[in-house]
């Protein structure tokens, strides 16, 4: 006696969020049934295991049929096949595009190619995320990347519009796309302590300030590429360490800005020269693609570790990083913007570290 066929179709598509999550997590039908049984749905509704199995199968089938639509979420809204209330649709999409931090951390900055996809089983083993789920997440990244790659206009906005994602998720995807495009190295041991959210924050800052799009908003450019011209301009920052006057001026400006705003002010003031040199050296090298990739490694090595050493930022490293880096970029960005020359560096340089420290203070409190 075997059930040959078992189908249930509702006019309004019935989806159980719990089962959806199990499906997304890559559970097989049988495993999902087990999980659900442990979850206690059965007792609640006096159902038997058979009922649960058939329900799970049905839902899995529905999700599989829906998956095609989820690949282009805008279609989901005006397709006729499934009748799903709008708020449900939003949940479906949001959940489908959600990802595991552990997984994304592994893939961040890697090329979204077939080669990487082949390594997914290793990643799966390492992170404990099922292979199925890894594939879905990877494919999501790739899909978003492909769509957004060719589009003009602000990256986050594009993602949000094409995939109907929430603002937060769209920003995360923007970060992923940005990292994948620039191939920033994030996998080194030194960077392991950084979470995806740390990187995402940096990516947001970089996108806002360092890309071509940051300059003049929309004009046919892309948010995904760093502004070459700007990177070129960064070279000129060297003057901040080579010219004694400017260095002092810079220092005084930064100190004025930061005074009283951070507990670590004294250490900062004492080590200003070293700090400044580390940052400027990194900035000056960025015209080189290889150095762009190593940007985060350099930053951590040259700046953060140094800061750590002198207990500048206590030991909350990730917070430091979040703080330092954007402001650094901020500063550089403003530099570029003004197309300043050697004669007027003092006007901008205070921002370089001062704001960094400031933010750090805020973060800590």
């Amino acid at each position, binding site marked *: 006696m075997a059930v040959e066929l078992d*189908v249930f179709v509702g006019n309004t598509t019935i989806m159980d969020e719990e089962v959806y999550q199990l499906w997304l997590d890559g559970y097989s039908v049988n495993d999902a049934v087990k999980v659900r049984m442990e979850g206690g749905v059965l007792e609640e509704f006096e159902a038997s295991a058979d009922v649960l199995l058939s329900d799970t199968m049905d839902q899995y089938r529905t999700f599989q049929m829906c998956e095609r639509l989820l690949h282009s979420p805008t279609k989901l809204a005006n397709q006729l*096949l*499934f009748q799903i209330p709008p708020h449900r649709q939003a949940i479906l999409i949001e959940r489908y595009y959600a990802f595991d931090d552990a997984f994304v951390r592994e893939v961040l900055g890697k090329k979204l190619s077939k080669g990487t996809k082949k390594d997914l089983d290793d990643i799966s083993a390492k992170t404990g995320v099922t292979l199925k789920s890894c594939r879905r997440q990877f494919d999501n990244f790739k899909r978003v990347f492909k769509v957004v790659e060719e589009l003009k206009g602000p990256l986050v906005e594009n993602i949000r519009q094409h995939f109907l994602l929430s603002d937060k998720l769209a920003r995360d995807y923007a970060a992923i796309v940005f990292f994948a495009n620039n191939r920033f190295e994030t996998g080194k041991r030194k960077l392991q302590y950084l979470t995806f959210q740390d990187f995402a924050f940096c990516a947001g800052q970089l996108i806002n300030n360092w890309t071509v799009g940051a300059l003049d908003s929309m004009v046919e450019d892309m948010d995904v590429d760093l502004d070459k011209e700007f990177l070129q301009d960064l070279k000129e920052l060297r003057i901040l360490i080579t010219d004694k006057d400017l260095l002092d001026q810079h220092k005084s400006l930064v100190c004025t800005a930061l005074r009283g705003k951070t507990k670590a002010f004294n250490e900062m003031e004492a080590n200003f020269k070293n700090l400044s040199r580390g940052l400027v050296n990194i900035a000056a090298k960025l015209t080189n693609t290889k150095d762009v990739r190593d940007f985060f490694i350099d930053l951590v090595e040259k700046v953060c570790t140094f800061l750590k050493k002198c207990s500048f930022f206590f030991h909350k490293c990730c917070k430091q990083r979040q703080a330092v880096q954007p402001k650094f970029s901020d500063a550089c960005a403003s530099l570029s913007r003004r197309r300043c020359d050697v004669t007027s560096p003092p006007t901008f340089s205070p921002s370089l570290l001062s704001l960094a420290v400031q933010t750090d203070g805020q973060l800590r409190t």
Partner: protein
Amino acid sequence: MPGKLKAKIVAGRHLPVMDRASDLTDAFVEVKFGNTTFKTDVYHKSLNPQWNSEWFKFEVDDEDLQDEPLQVTVLDHDTYSANDAIGKVYIDIDPLLCSEAASDISGWFPIYDTIHGIRGEINILVKVELFNDLNRFRQSSCGVKFFCTTSIPQCYRAVMVHGFVEELVVNEDPEYQWIDRIRTPRASNEARQRLISLMSGELQRKIGLKVLEMGGNAVVGYLQCFDLEGESGLVVRAIGTACTLDKLSCGSAPSTSTHMHPNTAPASNACSSPSKDGKEPLFGEDLPSSSGPPTPFRALPTSSSSPPPFSPFKPCSRQSSSSDTDLSLTPKTGMGSGGSGGKEAGPLKTLLRQQTQTALEQRGASSGLLLNVREFPFFTLTSFPPGFLVHVGGVVSARSVKLLDRIHNPALGNTRSYKLLDWNSVTADEPETRDAWWEEIRQEIKSHAKALGCHAVVGYNESTSICEEVCILSASGTAAILNARYMREGCLDIGSTDHRFEEPSPPSCGFCHIPYDEFNMPFPAQLTYCCHCRRQKVPDVLFTTIDLPPDAAVTGKGCLIQARLCRLKKKAQGEVNATAISNLLPFMEYELHTQLMNKLKLRSMNALFGLHIQISVGENMLLGLASATGVYLTALPAPGGIQIAGKSPGDLSNEHHILTIQKRITDTIAKNKELYQINTPKLFTLDPEVNGGINMVLSMELTEEVVGSPIPESRQRTRLFRSHSESSDELSELDLSHGKKDAFVLEMDDTDAVENIHFLLTDASPPTGFYSCNTEIMPGIYNWTSGVQMFTSVRVLRLSNANLTNQGLNKIFTDLCENLLKSFYFKLRSMIPCCLCHLKFTVAVPEEELIQVTVTAVSMTFDKNQIQEKLTDKPITKGSSETEEQLQFPLELSADLSSTSTQPSSKISGVPENTSVSPRAASVDYGSFADRCSTWLELLRLKAHTIRRGSVKTISSLERCSPLPEGRSRSLRSSRSSGGSSVTVVRMTPLSFLPGTNIIKYLGIINMFFIRETTSLREEGGVSGFLHAFIAEVFAMVRAHVAALGGNALAQCLINVSGDAVICVRETDQEPTSSTTNIGQTCSSGADGAT
């Protein structure tokens, strides 16, 4: 009325990629109607083409307009090779032909391909301009409205009900034509799809003509069925009720327009007047005994042969196959009947019967009923305007087994020549043969109804089950007496409230009063005075196929009651097979009936509504499934309990066993009472133990269990005894209560019986918060909220072990059904508290070892408060000693009732809330779904799957004047979310009805037929995945068509869809690995929108 049909192709979207190189498509569209074809330009390289074509105009005859669908084909242009078809859309123009219906069709339609399913959508605009042409000889019937709902549509009032219309159209099935061997699957599917579409158009037109002839303007309760008879052809048949309907303007309340009429009085009087032949024997006795006449139920005076009284079951006498089943099995008291009268001699009976019949006829004539004019006073409606239904007699049904003709073997069936028509001499394609078959059955039904003292049959339904060349035709209905007023012109206007006082039987119980005369009962029944009005007699149990009349007084809630039965049968061919089947049928009916009765008692209810008995044939078994909604009618006496009797009283262990079972039964009854909130006044509650003492047990088996008759073994399993109390019913009202202390006695005389009792107890009751019924609304629940979910579910079970016994099979089948129900409860748990309404089970035996069950239903949420209130009441009433409590209950309910039954239309002006619930329009229903299915080798065929969805509309005037704020596809969505609240968007639901709404306008009926086939079953996710996708697609297409109809009028709110669907799945193994599945589904839906 020739007309001009105009179509415009606007745009497409989400088209599939047809050109691999560019990942794009060069799409263009062909629009075809009749023999005329137009083409749009090719829109190059786009998946979202904007054709924005000119208006394509077709000048056509209205006959064609009715028959033909508009055929829109989307193709991919190929410069070098032939153009590839992407898919098609068939649009039925019928809804546009009604003056007051939709003015145009416009919207996104899914593009459907029989191999690939839905492939993108296309936006089409269709309009029709009709010219008036008063040709008397016209063949068209434009303007006749069709409604699939089995009640008078909400925004209309019935001026006159004309009666039964039926028609059938027969054609060769293209699937079986020689050409099918050489054409592509797609071509063959499309040919079939088109043919069926044409046939149903033609059928509808012909029915329309009949209606016009009768002077009506609408068909209500329209039911279309497809019989895929395989090689012998394709039969499309339809039945309906012709009516003259008047559109209500929004101001006038339908409730006032349809009233009780004074005329009921004579009718009912007539019925209760004793007729001369007072000692007429109980008809229930001999039902299957009649050997000769095609209508074994002896009521037909024309049957010349008098049935031998005591040999009811000689197989030889019945090879004709007409099975009988009828009255005696299913009528209201059904099984309870018994008595001794059956032993009269046959000839006498016939004589008496004739007398009764004439008496009845005279009676009918004298009371001014015009029904006799019509050949078949049948009504497919299941719910009626107040006052229409005067009395209900009981269920009448008839079945007949036929051999589908193969033209080449004329040797078959000569023995069957006493049939009305010698079907062997007629080729299978001739509709006359089928007509004759149905005619025969209808005659039989009619005569049964007469025997019950009724002049009409309501809730009438016909169905077939086909296996190879054997075909079971079944018809069933409820014998009733109707108010003649509705049959006459213009009568409705006279009716007004003041006549109510003259009405002898109050609406809340009047329909229960017996239509026949108590001294001359057609079958033995226990009559008592109506517990409600105390004036007239009522039977102890009432079985009907109709919905619960809205104004009936009910105690507690109703519930779904199912009887399930499997019977093994030897494999056989042709005539032998037919004989075997017809021999089995009566036993199955009997047993189903027994089960129903026992289950009813177990729930302490006393009436069944919406009874539907389905028997389907397979190669080696017969499946029977009876579903109904049990209700405790306040008017009927409280049901007795069930008692177990052991065969050998001496055996101690046995006795102990019996005691435990008895206890379980008693407990179950008590539990059920609590569950369904049945609080019978104490006087009527029964304590089985006490009863045991008083009662003298009359052995009264049903029907033909007459001593000496060759009773097949299976029948002996359950013996029913009715205990009879000494006090006579004729005594005063007080005595009444004592008179009711009867109990059913189940005798456990062998293991089978024990098993049966176990089955009784295995039926799980729905979990808290759930109710289920198979009628349109749940008796006892009145405060529906807006949550509605319609669903379809199909389950196929493969029986693994070949040597199954009947018992084993029964168990499997019962579990299958129970599990399905459990699944529903589980899946829909988020809707709690809710009720599964209109549960339609359809069973089939697609192949030797497969059992298939298909269910469609709608679940509706209702206000929790009511429930909670009742739940809290429960503990108090549980004690059931306080009579006051209990008495209040029914009162409260009936108060509820009357408030809801006042029709909402008066509130139309702006209040769309729950107050205006008018659920009568609801009808969701799957017709038949038979199925033949073979694993990988033969044919898998789910056949004749009828979806009928009714639904509703609402509008408040507020909504009406507001413009449509959103695009169509959007509004479809928003409609769902907005539910019953007064949001100014178009709201749609393909569901039967949206509570809290009111139908303002019906847009018409849609007919669709889909065939789906695939060569890559595996990719589609196996059979389940394939079917799942297919059903989802069908739903989507129905939704789209309705949206297109409804979305055009500003501010119309909801849409009514009702339709029929046929699925046939075919699976052939062409290569060992890939199997082809082919599903055809017809879906005809009536879409009605509201403005």
